[in-house]
């Protein structure tokens, strides 16, 4: 029953990644990201309950709370603020048109399946094809960064990668040791804050957050 839930969630996460890919507006990026984070939090919570029943570990629950606090509440809010502050007109943000990008993403999913299929012991117990889903979320996140021109888009992409990583870690190995998990959260938080700060600065200097304008350093 738990496994079933987790599977659905992982599929949901993958779908949310696709949805993100299909989004046009920054506001909708953030919304989709929030949804994704929520589902991750759920997954963490489920695993937390499971493990607390089984072996009385609580770290997952803590992590779950952290996710809710950071990825569901704080970071999206931060991004919203940033997005509100930069005077930013709606304009075409992506380099390819959406259908093609979706197709490429499908390709990435296939590829990550192909990549991970070599690992023996895949598909038994907890570690089933959810792992593939979550890894493909990483690639999609990376591709999202590639495909979006605006700074915020890139931040989101990075966050999606983080999500993918996190879910992968959680599903494949029941999560890292708690210290590591906390550390990762800390890092991610600072990273996002720094990026956000830089977005402001870029906005001042280049009076746009279109990072295609950042192309002076060549050769």
């Amino acid at each position: 029953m738990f496994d079933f839930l987790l599977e659905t969630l992982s599929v949901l996460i993958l779908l949310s990644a696709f949805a993100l890919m299909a989004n046009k507006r920054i506001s909708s990026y953030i919304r989709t990201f929030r949804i994704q984070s929520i589902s991750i939090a759920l997954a963490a919570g489920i695993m937390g309950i499971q493990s607390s029943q089984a072996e009385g570990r609580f770290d997952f629950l803590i992590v779950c709370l952290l996710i809710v606090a950071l990825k569901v509440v704080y970071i999206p809010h931060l991004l919203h603020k940033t997005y509100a502050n930069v005077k930013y007109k709606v304009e075409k943000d992506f380099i390819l048109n959406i259908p093609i990008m979706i197709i490429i993403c499908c390709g990435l999913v296939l590829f990550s399946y192909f990549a991970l299929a070599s690992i023996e012991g895949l598909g038994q117990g907890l570690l089933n094809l959810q792992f593939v889903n979550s890894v493909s979320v990483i690639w999609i996140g990376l591709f999202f960064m590639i495909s979006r021109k605006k700074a915020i888009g890139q931040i989101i992409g990075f966050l999606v990668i983080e999500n993918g990583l996190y879910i992968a870690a959680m599903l494949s190995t029941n999560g890292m040791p708690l210290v590591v998990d906390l550390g990762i959260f800390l890092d991610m938080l600072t990273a996002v804050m720094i990026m956000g700060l830089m977005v402001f600065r870029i906005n001042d200097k280049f009076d746009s957050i279109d990072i295609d304008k950042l192309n002076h350093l060549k050769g």
Partner: protein
Amino acid sequence: MELFLPVLFQASVLLYLVGAIISVLLRKREKINNLSANLFCMAASVLGAAASIAKILWHEGPLGIFEAHSTIPFLSLVMKVDNISAFFLLALFILVFCVSIYSIGYISHYIGRRNVGLFNFLYTTFILTMILVFTSTNAIFFYICWEAMSVFSYFLVVFESEKSENQRAGTLYIIMTHLASAFILVAFLIIYSYTQSFDLYGSSGALPEMSKNIIFLLFLIGFGTKAGLIPLHVWLPHAHPAAPSNVSALMSGIMIKTAIYGMLRFVHCYLGIEQAWWGLLILTLGMISVFLGVAYALMEGNIKRLLAFSSVENIGIILIGLGVCFIAFAHEQVLLGSFALTAALLHTFNHSLFKGGLFLGAGAIQYSTQTKDMEKLGGLSKRIPVTAFFVLCFSLAISAIIPFNGFIGEWLTFQALFANILPGQTGIDILLILAVAALGLAGGLVIACFVKFFGISFLGLPRSEQALQAKEVPLTMNISMGLLACLCLFFGLFPLTILTLVDKVILSIGGSTVLGELRGEFFLLFYPLEIAGNEILPAAILGLVLVMIILTLLLLRMFGGKYIERKYGTWDCGYEALTSRMQYSATGFSKPLQIVFKILFRPSRKLSAEGEALCSSEPIKYTTTFSSIFEDFLYSPAAKAVKSFSKKTAFRIQTGSIHNYLIYILVTVLLLILYNRFF
């Protein structure tokens, strides 16, 4: 001997070190600094020269001098002297002695203007590195010294760095020589990978046949570049003129010979000659260098560039000897090979003397006129007569004119070729005959070239104010040139003195003696030189010439009575306004040959007159420029191609768009995953 000789060598090396250190310490006291550094060099050279002669005459086999091992793997300093090293060292020490005397005077015009301390430091260490190159027994240590030599000489080349052409010359030089030494390094490492040792005196038995050929080619490229072998010579005519003249004397006199040493040491002694085509290749390249080198020299208007090109030619002569030697050894004809080797070694020695002298002479010209441009010189034989006389001697020597030492080398080379032409090896024979022809043509061109060099810059009327104001050079400079001139004459008259040394050297590397027994009752007094039944008596020839001159004078006195002389202006067709601009210019002198060999120089001329008609009385400007085939068709296109390629790719890769950068990462990951799946 065993105990005494190494100490002598060590002492000389030590003295160089001390000289270097002192010249750094006495940075402020420039006069003393200059004096002390050069005196140390002279003392060291005397010791060294004595040691090397003693080594060759009275000691067989390698002589250990110094050995030290570092904590870094494969870094060990092993110095040994065997006869080859000793021979090259002898040439080095003799030249260094003279050049150091010269420097005392020559460098004096730096005092107050440039950092003399730095110069002397570089000068001394440069010599030191050359000594180490000749004595190092460990391949890696050899490479290190080789590189150090290049670097120090680079700094000397760019010493007068305010001129941008010097900087360019230096850069070209350091780049080419560094690339070349990369080839040498590869060769060493291939050797190591088979023999597991860097010992130069070790055996190359473990090397497979194929790899030997490759190694030979690597060495040829590596050392050929240093030697200025055409088509790898392009750095030479730029670098040698750029350096201060005493340094260019060392560079042309000894440094390019390190390459000859390398070929001997690594190809002849270490690898051992197996294929005849090695020799053929060297011989062919030598011929090309001989002809083109002197041809380009003849066209030069800049005295030091002229001398530099002529170095290329002389290296060519040496390589012809070396090539013939390799061919002969490949056919196991030791005696014939030894002829050729004798010729090569002797010419190496002689060239270091007269080319060194010539560069010193050029330095003297520059010292007294501040110009290297022949079109600005002229009439110097009246203003600096002593220098003029010595330069004349060197010019005769390099033109292989009896009784100077240049001739002996030339004669031996011809004898070597002659002896090696054996019926039944048709291809090689034809090549050898062509070599004879090339040497002949070159001989003619050399005479033309140095008649131009001496005649234009020392004779006639001064072509510029500087030449008119030329001031006599310091005594030391003349002394050193005189010394070299005497040596040139001495070794020209009594070649046996040096040939006995050469003979020992060749015996020590598996050759056989070439000095036949001496015949001729009366002429024995004149030290005949007898090779393969052909004997010459340079001393006798000189004696006869002198006798003839005296006789002529006497007879003239008898028949013609007293000699009456009337001073008068040069015949001016009644025009009565003969100016210095009406005499033949350097360009004009070489014009006929330039037209004959148009194909080589592809001269481009420009006539420009202020007036519209060329026949008007307005001054007319005639400029003609030559271009070197290799620089135009080989090097600059290659350089351009590489540059543009690098520019293009650089901007294709580092586009400045972060998207591309992320794509790189993604693609890399995907590729590596593929690798993981398939391997």
